C-alpha cells in the first residue's frame, strides 16, 4: 500500500482556554488512504474535530493548543511546520466542509469567483480555466443553472444550495483529502439525504480520501469504509464500518449504537441509553475513561489504561480497547 495521504501517530493535544486546560486527544493514531472514507465518530467533547483538524492548524478562535506526536501529509511533517507553510499545504492538500456553510464562504463575494480563486491559487489554473473549473464544479455538486449561480452572492442561495457551494469550494483546489466536519447535522432530513448522496458520488468519482467527522451513525453507515470511535479523546474501537457498526465490541460503541433508532429492523429498540455523562477531561485519570459509565467495569478498569487489541476483521483489523469484553467473550485475535 502507498503512503497514507494523512497520518497521525501518538497524537496528544492539550487545549487551553483562558479558564481551563483539557486533554482533548490522548495518544491517538490514525491514517487515511487515498480513495477511502474514514469516519471519526464521537459525541460532543470526544475530541473528534480537534484530532482531525488540530494537526492542520485549524482550531476555534480563543483556543491555544499544545500538540505532541507526529502528523504527516504529502510526505511532510506538519508538527514542525511554520504556520505559513502549513496554511499553504492545507490549502492545496485539504478541502474542509463545515456544519455552517457561511463559515467557509465569504458573504461579501460572489460564489463563483471564490471557487475560481481557490482553483487558480492552489491548482495553478489560468483565470479562464479557473472560471470554467468553478462552473463545472457547481454543476457537479448539483447546483442548477451553474452559469447563473456563479455570479450570485451566498445570501441568494437556499440552505441546501449553500451546502453544495461549500462542497464545491472545498473541492476547488483539487485536494487529496476532503474533511467533512458534521456536514449534515444542521440540515433537514430530505436535504441531508441529498448531501449524503452527493458526498458518496464525489467519493466514487474522484477517489479522494474523505475524513467524515460526525456523531450521526446514519451518515457513517452511508459513507464510511472505516470507522474510529472516539471517547473522551481516546480511540475506543476501530475497524471496517461493517465490523464496527454491526459487531461492536467496546461497551461504549455498543451503548452508542443501541441508542440509535433503526426502524427498518424489528429487533433494535433504539432507545437504550448510556447512563451518566462523559468524564471531566480537565483531569487525566489512569484507567479507562468509560469506566464510570460502563456496565461491565471491573476494578482493574480504573487503574490501567486499556490498549487497542485486535478482535478480528479481514483486510481492515478490527480493534477494541476493552480487555474485559475481549476476555469474557473470547474475542482476542492473535494472527
Amino acid at each position, binding site marked *: 500500500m502507498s503512503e497514507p495521504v494523512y497520518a497521525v501517530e501518538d497524537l496528544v493535544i492539550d487545549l487551553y482556554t483562558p479558564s481551563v486546560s483539557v486533554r482533548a486527544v490522548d495518544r491517538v493514531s490514525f491514517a487515511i488512504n487515498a480513495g477511502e472514507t474514514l469516519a471519526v465518530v464521537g*459525541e*460532543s467533547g470526544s475530541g473528534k474535530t480537534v484530532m482531525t483538524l488540530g494537526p492542520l492548524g485549524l482550531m476555534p478562535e480563543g483556543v491555544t493548543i499544545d500538540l505532541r506526536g507526529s502528523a504527516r501529509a504529502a510526505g511532510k511533517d506538519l508538527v514542525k511546520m511554520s504556520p505559513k507553510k502549513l496554511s499553504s499545504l492545507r490549502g492545496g492538500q485539504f478541502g474542509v466542509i463545515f456544519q455552517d456553510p457561511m463559515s467557509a464562504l465569504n458573504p461579501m463575494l460572489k460564489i463563483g469567483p471564490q471557487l475560481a480563486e481557490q482553483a487558480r491559487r492552489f491548482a495553478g489554473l489560468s483565470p479562464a480555466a479557473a472560471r470554467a473549473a468553478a462552473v463545472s464544479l457547481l454543476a457537479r455538486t448539483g447546483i442548477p443553472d451553474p452559469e447563473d449561480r456563479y455570479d450570485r452572492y451566498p445570501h441568494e442561495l*437556499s*440552505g*441546501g*444550495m449553500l451546502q453544495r457551494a461549500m462542497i464545491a469550494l472545498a473541492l476547488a483546489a483539487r485536494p487529496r483529502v476532503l474533511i467533512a466536519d458534521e456536514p449534515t447535522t444542521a440540515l*433537514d*432530513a*430530505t*436535504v*441531508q*439525504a*441529498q448531501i*449524503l*448522496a452527493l458526498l458518496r458520488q464525489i467519493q466514487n468519482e474522484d477517489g479522494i480520501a474523505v475524513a467524515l467527522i460526525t*456523531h450521526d*451513525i*446514519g*451518515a*457513517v*453507515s*452511508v459513507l*464510511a469504509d472505516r470507522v474510529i470511535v472516539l471517547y473522551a479523546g481516546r480511540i475506543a474501537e476501530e475497524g471496517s*464500518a*461493517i465490523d464496527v*457498526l*454491526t459487531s461492536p465490541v467496546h461497551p461504549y460503541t455498543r*451503548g*452508542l*449504537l*443501541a*441508542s*440509535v*433508532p*433503526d*426502524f*427498518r*429492523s424489528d429487533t*433494535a*429498540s*433504539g*432507545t*437504550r*441509553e*448510556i*447512563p451518566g*455523562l462523559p468524564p471531566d477531561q480537565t483531569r487525566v485519570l489512569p484507567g479507562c475513561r468509560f469506566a464510570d459509565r460502563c456496565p461491565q467495569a471491573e476494578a482493574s478498569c480504573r487503574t490501567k489504561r486499556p490498549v487497542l487489541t485486535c478482535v478480528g476483521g479481514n483486510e481492515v483489523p478490527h480493534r477494541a480497547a476493552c480487555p474485559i469484553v475481549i476476555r469474557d467473550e473470547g474475542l482476542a485475535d492473535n494472527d
Partner: protein
Amino acid sequence: MTDSDASDPRPRDKAANSGPAIEVEGLKVHFRTSAGLVRAVDGVDLAVQNGAFHGIVGESGCGKTTLARAIVGLQSATAGHVRILGRDRADWQRANRKGFARSVQFIFQDPLGSMSRRQSVLQTLEEPLRIHGIGNAAARRRKVGELLDLVSLPASVLDRLPRSLSGGQRQRVSIARALALDPRVLLCDEPLSALDVSVRAQIVNLFARLQDQLGLTIVIVAHDLAIVREVCSAVTVMYLGRVAEEGAARPFFADPTHPYSQALLSAVPSPDPRVEATRVPVLLEGDPPSPLNPPAGCRFSTRCPVVIEACRVTEPQLRAVQHGGRSACHLADTSGHPIL
C-alpha cells in the same frame, strides 16, 4: 380559586378522560415581514387525544414550532381557534392566566435560553411553586426533591447554575420545572435536537416514563422521524404550513400514504451499512419552497416525485385513508397510490 379544574386532583388514569386534550381549528399564523407575508401556519386542524404522546414532524419552515407556540398562546394567531382540555384557550388565559399555566406547560428548544443565568437549579425549580403560592418553604423543598427524582437528577445539582450543567442535565431541569405545577398538557419544542445521541435516548426514555407515570398529554415538535417513531402514539407531518398527513403512529409508519411522509422516512439512513450498501433512498429535488409564496395547488407539488396535473391546480384536503388517519394527497389510496 375560581378555576375549578386546576385545583381538582388530576386524573392520572388515561382512560378516565378520553377525547381530545387539544383541538386546533383553522389555525393561521401569518407574519408581515419586509419581504412579504410569511404564511408560517396556514390553515391547520389538529386533534391531540388525551394521554397521547403526539409528535409534530417536518422540516425547517414547515411551521411546526410556530404551531406549537400558537397552541399555547406564545404566538398570536391570525385566524382560527384552539381549545385545550375542553376550554377555549384564549378565554382561559384571559380569565385565569395562572390556572392555565398550571394545566399547560411549554418546554423550549434551548433550555439555557429559557432559564435565568443567575438562578441556581433550586431557585429555578422553586420559582413556579412560589409564584403560584403552593405550599410553605418546607413543602416546596420537598416538591423540588420529588421533581429531581422524577427526572433522575442528583440533589448535588441544586446549587449549580445552568451554565455549569451539561446539555442533558439542563434539559432535565427544564422538564422538571415544567412539571413543578403538575400540568396535564406538556408541549415541547425540539427538546432533543441539541443533545448528543446517547443523551437523547435518556431524554426520550424520560418523556416516555413521565407520560406513563403521570398520564400526561405530551406534544413534541421534532424533525427526527426515527425518534418520533420510537416513542409517539400519534404523528402529524407538516409541510409548508399545512398538515400533509396524520394518524396513529403504528399504522402510519407501517403505511404512510403521502409522498412527502414517504420521502421523509426514506431520508433516514439505516445504521446498518449492509442495508445502506443496496438501499436507494428517495431523493427529493431542491429545498422546501419559501412560505412567502407557497406553490399553487398542493404545496408539495414542486418536489413531488409522483406529481400529476391535478396537484398543481387543486390543493388536496385532508381525508381519511386506510391506515386510519388522514392524508392530504390526491393519490392516496387510489389506483395511483404513491409508493416511493
